[in-house]
């Protein structure tokens, strides 16, 4: 399992499509920084292929006032959770 | 990469040629066989036909690819142009002792190779 990390919003960049295109069926995607916008119910459809494998970083959601507004399908993790995801992954791939 | 900082000058015949802190030419167009002879003398190398043919390979490499080669591609280019006997790092080590990719690039009037130690 690889952990892909995305820091751009689907509203501003299509890089999320490139991330998804290179993801294997077990790989996970973590949304950080502006990427957490993708966790909103109106935008999460862009990640529907990843059911159960989409994560968002709590600290970045909180900073943007989006903590309570995430779609229920997104797993919210804090920085410790980020570290755990990294440890469980063979390696990470950054998309920016 | 080519440095634009003039550190010192090399006297070649009646001319002064600007060198950067690592001894590479500041103006690549200053190169001439006479400049190569002077640079080689500084390295304690007496240029033989075997040296000149490698310098020729380097100058052709730079003209084509716009970069000085690291050791592996230099060995490959020399092997292609001069035959497999010469396309070996031991041959280049003998001609340009120390760090062959850097020393030979300096004598050939190329910038310092970017992708090597």
């Amino acid at each position, binding site marked *: 399992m690889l952990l892909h990390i995305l820091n751009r919003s689907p509203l501003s960049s*299509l*890089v999320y499509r490139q991330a998804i*295109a*290179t993801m*294997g069926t077990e790989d996970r995607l973590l949304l950080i920084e502006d990427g957490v916008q993708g966790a909103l119910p109106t935008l999460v459809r862009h990640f529907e292929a990843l059911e159960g494998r989409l994560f968002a970083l709590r600290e970045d959601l909180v900073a943007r006032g989006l903590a309570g507004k995430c779609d229920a399908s997104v797993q919210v993790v804090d920085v410790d959770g980020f570290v755990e995801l990294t440890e469980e992954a063979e390696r990470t*791939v*950054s998309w920016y | 990469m080519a440095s634009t900082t003039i550190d010192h000058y090399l006297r070649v015949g009646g001319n002064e040629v600007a060198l950067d802190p690592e001894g590479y030419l500041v103006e690549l167009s200053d190169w001439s066989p006479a400049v190569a002879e002077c640079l080689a003398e500084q390295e304690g190398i007496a240029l033989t036909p075997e040296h000149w043919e490698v310098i020729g390979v380097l100058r052709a490499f730079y003209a*084509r690819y716009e*970069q000085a080669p690291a050791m592996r591609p230099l060995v490959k280019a020399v092997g292609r142009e001069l035959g497999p006997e010469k396309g070996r790092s031991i041959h280049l080590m003998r001609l340009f002792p120390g760090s062959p990719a850097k020393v030979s690039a300096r004598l050939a009037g190329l910038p310092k190779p*970017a992708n090597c130690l």
Partner: protein
Amino acid sequence: MTDVPPYHGDLLVILRHGPHGSSLLREGLDAALVAAAFGRDVSLLFMGEGISALVRDQQVGPLGQKGTAATLQMLEMYDIDRLLVDGEGLAGLGLAPRDLMLPVEVLDSSAMAVQPKVHRLVLTF
């Protein structure tokens, strides 16, 4: 967890930016060249706008910026010969392999999805 598939290479460099517009393409190629100079087995994956780096007949930019075509031609001297191209992206640009300056392997979506997995390290540029 399934078994790790056999590795195709040590390093996958993903190139997503075209020539002239930013320095990312050049930085990615430099990373690939450094790794290859140290004997690593490197693959390049061109995606999206990055595919335009391979188009034939490129020139210097309008302000005289050096292009990347010479560097791409040089890849074979560093034994970098696994050049992968996203087929969907290639079609999106209206291009075919014959429009490209180097021989490439065009990947379908299932081949795309395994590339990061089959390299020991992945860098995106």
